[in-house]
């Protein structure tokens, strides 16, 4: 018997018991939709967390904190940087030193306080550093500033009246309004000598402004100075990185030009990150990369999703009881027909196949309907739930938060489970159909 004819038989049989079959399909669809919606919460939250993590950090970046030897960590030196640059799959190695005091910057009557970093600009450019305007420094007195630096340049800094009472932000008339590029500013650093504060002013020219950070909430108001200016500050204070509060007399080595506070390795692409991470770990470097964090996040969510799918499967199992019932009734009702078919030569295998196909048919239609319903629910949840939560708790939810996501894999898993369970529940009635006694069935004794 051809499959096409078997389907024709099934359609005829379903037509005869339209209401009963529709109810069974509905139960299956509900089970399937429940499974998908439940698991979609896991998928949705994972997507949000992963997206957040990825947006916060550059995925190809590996932070290198130091090198471990005999249980001690030492800061990274130029030799380390050279080695890191030689590792296969590494695109750039940036190295920065943070000034260990917060200098004051002045342009005309505007002042600002901001962190200062010395950095190696060629490697920064290679790693993807971009300017929103201007150019990179070419001589020792030239600097670039972060995108938000200008917002810290304030007139009458000590005046309490500069803040807006409602928003708490600095009033615009007190903020620096001009273009920064090409402006000369004074950087004032301090040292303490026997309780007395001594200041040194260095004249710097702003030649470039960095690109705005990708995340809305991130602020970059740093000043990026040359290594020579950094060394001048150290020379002035007599302490490493211009640090305050320590006595220069007690320090053996002031020069920090050979060591770096902040070293970052950039891999050529996402695939190379793992290989580079493995090699650096093998060489005893203390590292952190978002890829390894992603691994842990994904593992956690995989466990959570598996749990949710398991709970959802229970709904499908409950629906399968309906299928079992429907199929058992179908076999009982059709027993005389089955008997006749067997008498004229229908193979038991064919009869079993017809009933299994019928339960699979219910499963497939239920899964399709369930999937469509689940997509609709997911859409409604993503649109409606933030509004409800905001209304109920007066709390604004983080931007881009996704409660429910239904990837193709989830649909395939749900449809697979649904089909497996429905076929399984159709097995026994199908087997019963093959065991029908021809003579009893023809005498209408079943």
């Amino acid at each position: 018997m051809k499959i096409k004819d078997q389907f024709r038989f099934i359609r005829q049989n379903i037509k005869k018991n339209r209401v009963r079959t529709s109810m069974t399909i509905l139960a299956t669809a509900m089970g399937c939709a429940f499974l998908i919606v439940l698991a979609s919460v896991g998928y949705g939250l994972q997507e949000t967390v992963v997206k957040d993590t990825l947006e916060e950090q550059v995925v190809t970046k590996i932070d290198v904190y130091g090198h471990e030897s005999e249980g001690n960590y030492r800061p990274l030196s130029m030799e380390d940087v050279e080695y890191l640059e030689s590792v296969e799959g590494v695109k750039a190695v940036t190295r920065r030193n943070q000034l260990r005091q917060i200098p004051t910057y002045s342009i005309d009557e505007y002042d600002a306080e901001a962190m200062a970093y010395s950095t190696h600009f060629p490697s920064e450019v290679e790693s993807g550093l971009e300017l929103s305007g201007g150019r990179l420094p070419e001589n020792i007195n030239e600097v670039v500033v972060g995108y938000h630096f200008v917002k810290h340049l304030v007139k009458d800094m000590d005046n309490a009246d500069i803040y807006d009472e409602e928003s708490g932000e600095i009033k615009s008339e007190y903020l620096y309004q001009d273009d920064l590029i090409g402006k000369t500013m004074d950087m004032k650093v301090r040292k303490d000598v026997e309780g007395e504060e001594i200041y040194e002013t260095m004249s710097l020219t702003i030649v470039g402004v960095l690109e705005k950070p990708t995340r809305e909430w991130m602020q970059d108001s740093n000043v990026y100075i040359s290594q020579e200016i950094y060394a001048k500050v150290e020379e002035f204070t007599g302490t490493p990185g211009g640090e305050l509060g320590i006595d220069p007399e007690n320090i053996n080595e002031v020069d920090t030009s050979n060591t770096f506070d902040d070293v970052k390795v950039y891999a050529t692409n996402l695939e190379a990150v793992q290989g580079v991470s493995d090699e650096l770990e093998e060489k005893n470097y203390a590292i952190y990369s978002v890829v390894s964090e992603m691994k842990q996040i994904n593992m956690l969510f995989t466990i959570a999703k598996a749990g949710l799918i398991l709970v959802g499967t229970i709904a499908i199992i409950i629906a399968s009881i309906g299928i079992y019932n429907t199929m058992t009734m179908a076999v009982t009702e059709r027993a005389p027909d089955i008997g006749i078919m067997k008498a004229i030569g229908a193979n038991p295998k064919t009869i079993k196949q017809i009933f299994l196909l019928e339960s699979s048919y219910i499963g497939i239609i239920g899964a399709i309907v369930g999937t469509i319903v689940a997509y609709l629910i997911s859409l409604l949840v993503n649109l409606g739930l933030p509004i409800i939560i905001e209304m109920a708790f007066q709390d604004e939810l983080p931007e881009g938060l996704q409660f429910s996501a239904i990837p193709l894999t989830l649909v395939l898993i749900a449809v697979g489970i649904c089909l497996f369970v429905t076929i399984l529940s159709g097995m026994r009635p199908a087997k019963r159909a093959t065991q029908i006694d021809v003579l009893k069935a023809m005498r209408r004794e079943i």
Partner: protein
Amino acid sequence: MIKVKQLSHHFELGKKENKTTLPVLKDISLQVEAGEIVSIVGKSGSGKSTLLNLISGFIKPTEGDIWIKDQKVTDFSEAKFADFRLNQMGFIFQSFQLIPSMTAYQNIELPLILKGESEIDRKQKTIAMLEKVGLEEFKDHYPSELSGGQQQRVSIGRALVLEPPLILADEPTGSLDSETEADLLTFIQKLNKELGVTFLIITHDEEVAHIGHRSITISDGQLIEGSDSL
């Protein structure tokens, strides 16, 4: 065509503790040649229907063997016997055994579907058979919309559509009036003559028994000596 050798059968009655056996057939041996019409006659309860059910493979004999077309069918599995029935046997039952939810056309087409024939072949053969049994006008009628004689013709059409060499008929005229009965018997004889189909007919009706080349009498599960009227 059919060879039955020392066939015995009994039914088991009651449950485990009080199980009793009811012998139905005792040491039956008979032979039916290809192209014959053989009637098996006997009173109710004589075992003639049981003999037909054993030959059809609906039940397995307690003892003895059956050969059909030189194949020992008593050794067949259920699935193999089903295929054998589909290809080698046709059935006519007293109560027609048509599927009520199928039209005359669909009932006749059923064996062709089970055999997996193409739609074009099926259509051609079903229409030809409907013409042969004189029911082309009633092809879209359901069994409940047909008379007894018409239903039996549908049943014969279904039995013959795959052109099996052997037709087993259990009281084929049992539900028919005398006029329709006469028509049906003539039709059986015509099929036998024209197509060479072998018929094994179970009946208690003397008139039906007489259309055969020979008749065999069964009484109390045993063949009556000398009943073979070949």
